[in-house]
């Protein structure tokens, strides 16, 4: 199973998901073609109501602990409640350009 599929399945298993968007952004980085190292994940969930951002992200990091230890190097996270998501009309910030990193 691809890492992307693993990520999606685990997030869906751990949270009530109203919307999930996952992009493999590895091609934007200093890694081999076809890599699964850099992802951008948008999650809209009612589970985030009343939860501050740092705790929302920690919750997702906990679900994806295995992937992050196994080679997922960057995970851009955009977490919204359904209400926040509607207020932004589905607009989450894009990821920045790579600046070379250190070869990972």
């Amino acid at each position: 199973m691809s890492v992307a599929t693993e990520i999606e399945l685990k997030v869906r298993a751990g949270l009530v998901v109203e919307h999930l968007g996952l992009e493999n952004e590895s091609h934007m980085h200093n890694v081999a073609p076809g890599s699964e190292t850099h992802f951008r994940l948008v999650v809209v969930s009612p589970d985030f109501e009343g939860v501050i951002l740092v705790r929302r992200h920690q919750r997702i990091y906990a679900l994806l602990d295995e992937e992050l230890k196994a080679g997922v190097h960057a995970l851009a996270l955009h977490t919204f409640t359904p209400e926040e998501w509607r207020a932004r009309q589905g607009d989450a910030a894009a990821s920045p350009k790579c600046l070379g990193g250190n070869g990972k």
Partner: protein
Amino acid sequence: MDVMQVIKEQIEGNPVILYMKGTPQFPQCGFSARAIEVMTTIGKPFAYVNILEAPEIRASLPQYGNWPTFPQLWINGELVGGSDIILEMQRSGDLAKMLETAAVEVPPAE
């Protein structure tokens, strides 16, 4: 000194501290660069640690803060988050408020 103790002293000894890849002048990762951009725009003093030159801290901080990636912004001893949160909190105005109320005396971390 034990690395966890070093981290604790850095975080508790600096009201605002950013753990990043590279330096504010030469960030070496797009996410760290974005964090620096926001911090510079807000213009309040902050300490930083270049984790590319501090491999022990790089290895141990994720465990300390229950946060696996960099950059990490800590204000008044609490983890605020990474670059996505920093950007989001700039947008909402919350970050400027937090930095405003954090203590103004910021010694260098290294």
